[in-house]
Structures are given as structure tokens and as C-alpha cells.
């Protein structure tokens, strides 16, 4: 049975095979049994006939043996059952009298000992016969009776015509009855299989109709047969998971499209506005400069979208960075962001406890720089005037290092805390471009942290209202 054979076909095939075997064994068995019984009773009757027949053998004065058929005996043995055949043999093997026109084969003698019956055919007529050694006392005793005390052997056979007919009838009955039973039960098996598999087919139909817009459909598990309930349940769970991720993807693409529309609108309107006004070298150069900035903004956004759009699985590659190198990254980020901190009257302080040779962290320069830049930028952007950003790098235990970015600003509003790391969650609901956030910074940072086996969490600041982000990095050595 190939793997592709349908379940119902398999069930039916198995059923029919089992049925054939059972019915075959049963029918053959009962047929053989009946045949044996019929043969047995036929043989019993035949033996009685042979026995009775032996009384007809008489010995003449000269010692010759004759079979004397009286009227009575003729009607008993010949006329009535004229198909019976017989042969009488003297003790010396000479044939005395016979209605058998074939010479019994020598091996028949073996049947005498075994008192077995022998089937044979004369002119297409089938017979069943027995060699019967008679102990009968011969009538008409004469001196020197050759046969006296000796045995005569009688071969007596009856036609099995009627018997064969009966046996054929039984055989025929067995075949017809067995065939009908198999046919009917196969049909029943079809019906039953269909019925039994109906819930499965129903499930298939329901499942087949589910597409992206109907992912909210579920099986009513309670209405399924108990052995299909686990399947229904897992299917529902699968659908729920699918729906969830589909929703997330849909929301993401809607959000991404929305986020891209505005910068594209800026770019397009900028080009069109420049084209509407008459050419002017100075103004056109300025316009080009602005357009370049707009394009760069779109490019940054696209790149960020690609990072957060990727499934957040771990990176295959092994990454590592030494403590010295990560401190260098921190210093570089601080250098590049200090001017913007100073612009709002703030400052950035760095505190590292992670020194010593051979300290290695599981991340890389690029990720570290991105995460740190995002965190510090956020602190400056939302920390308010005079914000003080502090960066701490230390080993929290033997397995993890911590990079903490905290500020003394107003902190994360409670309503934002839940979706802080979601894509397009912004500190400023209005999405004012003036602050310049894409709404992807924290989502990207968390994705990068997770990719290296680390974590990025927001914690309540120590004794202040400010935001405190902790990046836990796996410590390799």
C-alpha cells in the first residue's frame, strides 16, 4: 500500500482482506467438514451393502463360487441401485462374478487393510468403492469346499452421483453466500468508512476554506468526536498562532507603509515644488541639498524597517568583542552625541567597571554602537532640557555584563511602558518630526540584543523618575 493511498481506501482494503480471510477459512472449513460427513455416511451405507451382498455368494458342489441374485436381492442391489457395481474374488484372487468391467488395480489391496474407500471413474461416472473381506459363512457347504474357512473378498462400489451433487450444492451455497456477504459488507464498509471519516472531511473542508482573511475561524472542539478533539485543538492553536503572526505582520506592513508615506510625500512635494518655481541656481542647490536629506531619512527608515521586519531569531554567526573594544564603542558614541546633549544643556557621563584583559562579550561593534546610540539619543530626545545621561558598563555576574543607560528626565509615561519596545511606539504620540524619531529605535535595539543572546529591558530608575535601560550581554570569558 503506497503512502498516498487514502485512509478510507486503506480501511476498506484492510477490512475486505480480513473478511476474505475469515470467510474463506470458515467456508472452506465447513465445506470440508460437510463433505467428510457426507462421505462418511455414504461409506457406512456402502459397507452395509457390501456386507449384505456377501450373503449372496454361494459355493457350488464343485467348490465354485457363484453369486446368486434372487429377485429380492436383485431389487436390493441391482435394480434398485442398479448403478452399484461389485466384484467377488475368491481367496486365490480369481474373480468369481462381477458387474465391474474394469480390473481392480493391484494397489487396491492396500485399501483392504486400511478399509479405506477408493474413488474411481467408469465411463465418466464417478464411483466410490470398498474392497471388503467377508467372513460370511458360505451356504451349500460341500466336502472339500475350497472356500470354506477361507475368505472371499468383495469389491463393492456405489455411484457418488447424488453425493457429488450434494457436495456441489454445498460448495455453490458457500461461494454464493460468502460472495454475497463479502459484497454487502464491503458496501457497508464504504458507508461506514465515509461516515466515520466525515468529521475529518468536514475539518478538511473548513481548513481548506481558511485563508488570510478568515484566519479567525475555529473548530468547535466540543462537537468533534473525542479522538479528533486533540487534532481540532492543535489546529485551533495553530490557527491562533498564525492569526497572531499574520496580524503582527499586517500591522507592521501597514505601519511601515504609513511611516514611509510621509517622508516620500516630503520628497515628492519637494521635487514638485522645486519644479513649479522658475529655475534659480542658488535656490535649486538648496532644494537639492534638502532633497538629499529627505532621501537619507527614507534610507535610514528603510534600513531600520529591514532590521525590525526580520524574525527575531538568533544570529547564526558567532560574534564577540573584547571589553576594551566595547569601551571604545561607548566612548565613540558619547563623542558623537555629546554635542546634541549640550545643545539642550545636558551632559553624558560614562562609568565603566569592566576592565581587565581577556574579558569578552557576545555582541559586535556594529550592534553595540547601534543599541547604545539609540538609547542615548532617546535619553537626550525625551529627557528634557539639562538632561544628564549616565552610561554604566559592568559585569553583573559571571555570565552577564550590563550596559546601563539612564537619565534624570521625566521617565517613560506609564501608558507607553507596555509597548515601549514595539515598532512605531513613540515617546511623543503626535509623532512630531521635529524630534526626528522613527519609532523604531527601541524595537531595533531589542532585536539586536536578542540576536546575540542578550536582553534589553526597561527598569525603574534608582531613586529617580528617569528612564533606565539595561542591556544584558552574554559574557563569554
Amino acid at each position, binding site marked *: 500500500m503506497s503512502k498516498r493511498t487514502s485512509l478510507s481506501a486503506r480501511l476498506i482494503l484492510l477490512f475486505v482482506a480480513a473478511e476474505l480471510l475469515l470467510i474463506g477459512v470458515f467456508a472452506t472449513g465447513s465445506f470440508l467438514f460437510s463433505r467428510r460427513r457426507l462421505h462418511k455416511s455414504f461409506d457406512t451405507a456402502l459397507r452395509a451393502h457390501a456386507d449384505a451382498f456377501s450373503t449372496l455368494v454361494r459355493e457350488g458342489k464343485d467348490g465354485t463360487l457363484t453369486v446368486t441374485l434372487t429377485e429380492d436381492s436383485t431389487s436390493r442391489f441391482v435394480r434398485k441401485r442398479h448403478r452399484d457395481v461389485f466384484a467377488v474374488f475368491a481367496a486365490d484372487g480369481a474373480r468369481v462374478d462381477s458387474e465391474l468391467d474394469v480390473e481392480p488395480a493391484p494397489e487396491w489391496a492396500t485399501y483392504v487393510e486400511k478399509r479405506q474407500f477408493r474413488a474411481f471413474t467408469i465411463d465418466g461416472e464417478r464411483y466410490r468403492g470398498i474392497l471388503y473381506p467377508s467372513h460370511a459363512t458360505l451356504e451349500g457347504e460341500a466336502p472339500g469346499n475350497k472356500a470354506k474357512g477361507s475368505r472371499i473378498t468383495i469389491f463393492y462400489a456405489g455411484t457418488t452421483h447424488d453425493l457429488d451433487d450434494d457436495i456441489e450444492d454445498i460448495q455453490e451455497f458457500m461461494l454464493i453466500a460468502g460472495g454475497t456477504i463479502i459484497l454487502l459488507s464491503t458496501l457497508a464498509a464504504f458507508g461506514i468508512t465515509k461516515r466515520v471519516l466525515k468529521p475529518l472531511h468536514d475539518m478538511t473542508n473548513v481548513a481548506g476554506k481558511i485563508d488570510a482573511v478568515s484566519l479567525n475561524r475555529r473548530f468547535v472542539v466540543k462537537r468533534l468526536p473525542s479522538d479528533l478533539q486533540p487534532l481540532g485543538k492543535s489546529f485551533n492553536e495553530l490557527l491562533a498562532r498564525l492569526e497572531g503572526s499574520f496580524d503582527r505582520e499586517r500591522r507592521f506592513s501597514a505601519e511601515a507603509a504609513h511611516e514611509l508615506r510621509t517622508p516620500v*510625500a516630503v520628497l515628492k*512635494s519637494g521635487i514638485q515644488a522645486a519644479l513649479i518655481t522658475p529655475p534659480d541656481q542658488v535656490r535649486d542647490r538648496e532644494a537639492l541639498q534638502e532633497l538629499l536629506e529627505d532621501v537619507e531619512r527614507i534610507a535610514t527608515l528603510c534600513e531600520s524597517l529591514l532590521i525590525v521586519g526580520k524574525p527575531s531569531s538568533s544570529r547564526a554567526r558567532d560574534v564577540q568583542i573584547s571589553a576594551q573594544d566595547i569601551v571604545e564603542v561607548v566612548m565613540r558614541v558619547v563623542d558623537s552625541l555629546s554635542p546634541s546633549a549640550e545643545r539642550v544643556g545636558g551632559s553624558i557621563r560614562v562609568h565603566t567597571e569592566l576592565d581587565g584583559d581577556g574579558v569578552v562579550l557576545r555582541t559586535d561593534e556594529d550592534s553595540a554602537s547601534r543599541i547604545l546610540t539609540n538609547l542615548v539619543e532617546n535619553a537626550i530626545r525625551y529627557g528634557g532640557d539639562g538632561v544628564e545621561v549616565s552610561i554604566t558598563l559592568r559585569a553583573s555576574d559571571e555570565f552577564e555584563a550590563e550596559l546601563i543607560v539612564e537619565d534624570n528626565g521625566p521617565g517613560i509615561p506609564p501608558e507607553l511602558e507596555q509597548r515601549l519596545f514595539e515598532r512605531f511606539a513613540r515617546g511623543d504620540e*503626535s*509623532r*512630531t*518630526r521635529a524630534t526626528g524619531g522613527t519609532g523604531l529605535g527601541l524595537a531595533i535595539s531589542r532585536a539586536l540584543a536578542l540576536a546575540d543572546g542578550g536582553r534589553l529591558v526597561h527598569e525603574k530608575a534608582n531613586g529617580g523618575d528617569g528612564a533606565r535601560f539595561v542591556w544584558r550581554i552574554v559574557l563569554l570569558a
Partner: protein
Amino acid sequence: MRILIVEDEVRLARNIKKGIESIPSFVVDVCHDGIDGQHQAITSSYDLVILDLMLPGVDGLTILQSIRAKGLTLPVLILTARNTKEDVIRGLDFGSDDYLGKPFDMGELLARVKALIRRSHNRPDPKLRIADMEIDTHRHIVRRGTREHVLPALEYRLLEYLAYRANEVVSKTDLLEHLYDYNWEKFSNVIEVYVSALRRKLEMDGAPRLIHTLRGQGYILSQNPPGESDP
């Protein structure tokens, strides 16, 4: 015509302003947040508002509601990145006159703005005709008799505004409010200077006067001098 743009994306607002002001008919004011925008829209006289939906402070739909609640009938065009069918329907149902999704085509935006202005003055024909004068609001050319005039922006704007409100007395305050953005210092005698310049051009070859002065009331653009008009 004076248009208000309420758009928090500074760059975009500036580009739209540039685009619209390339047409001599219009002057543009820009607000970058909802609070400012709402205040401007309901206290100043605008001929049209271009409204973003997601704004800091007060959102666009709230501004739209307060404009309509004040009984202002000026056309409002919503210009937003939210362009699903539901958003469009909701925007229109809230009382806006048109809805355009970002990114948009500048040409389409300008055409829609002009169409909305025409409809709001009940002048569907893009050519305004008074007596033997015809103002082509598409090409911004004024023709009187056989003579064609390409007017300086302010003169054209003044004439077009008077033409949209033809046979109606327009006060100097009205003119100052509708022809200048709020950065201008408003001196009423500027209007007189432009009116006389227009008269000089339009009354060449002894053509009859079309812009009449109503002392203490303002101006009226009409074929018939005031007082002689039909009762």
C-alpha cells in the same frame, strides 16, 4: 485667497506652501501643531484649510469638528498618510470637503484646491466673466475686450478675489484678510494703490469702470456702478 496649512511635518508644509504660492491666486499660512492650527482656523478668515490628521496637541478631526461647530463653511481638504477607505469615509463624514492621501501629487493637490475654491464661491467655471472682462483662473490671464493682461501676483489676486465675489460689496478689511498671509503688515492704503493700478490697466481705451469704490464700505466689482444697479 488665503489658505491655511496645518501640517506637523515642517518640510512638507513648506513644500506645499511653495507649491500653492506658485499660483498667484493664493497666499498660505502654516501651522505646525494642532493647538495653533485649531486657533488659526477658527479665528482667522481663510478660504480653505489643508489639514493633516495626526498632529501634536489637537488632532485633525477635532480641528475639523471645531471648524464646523463654529459654523464656518470654508472648504477643508484632509491631507494625510492615513489613506484607508475607512479613514477617507470618516474624514468626509466629519465634514471635510476633500481627502488626499500621502504621498500626493502636487499638481493634483493644486487642482483640487482650485476646484474647492470655485465650488465654495459657487463659480464652477474656471473662467470668471464680468461684462466684457474674462479672468482665466487656470492660466492667470485677464482679458478685457481684445486686450490681454498678465498682472503682477497681488493685482491678480485682488482682482480674482473681487471677481469671485462680483456684485458684492467687499470691505477693505476683508481684502486685507484674504489677500495677505499673517506675516504682512497690513496698511489699508496698499489696497488703494493696487485698485488704482488695476483700474488703469482695465480701463484702457476708455472702457467703462468695473471696480467701484463705495466710500466707507469698500469695493464692488460690477458692470453697473452702485446705485444704478437693479433694485
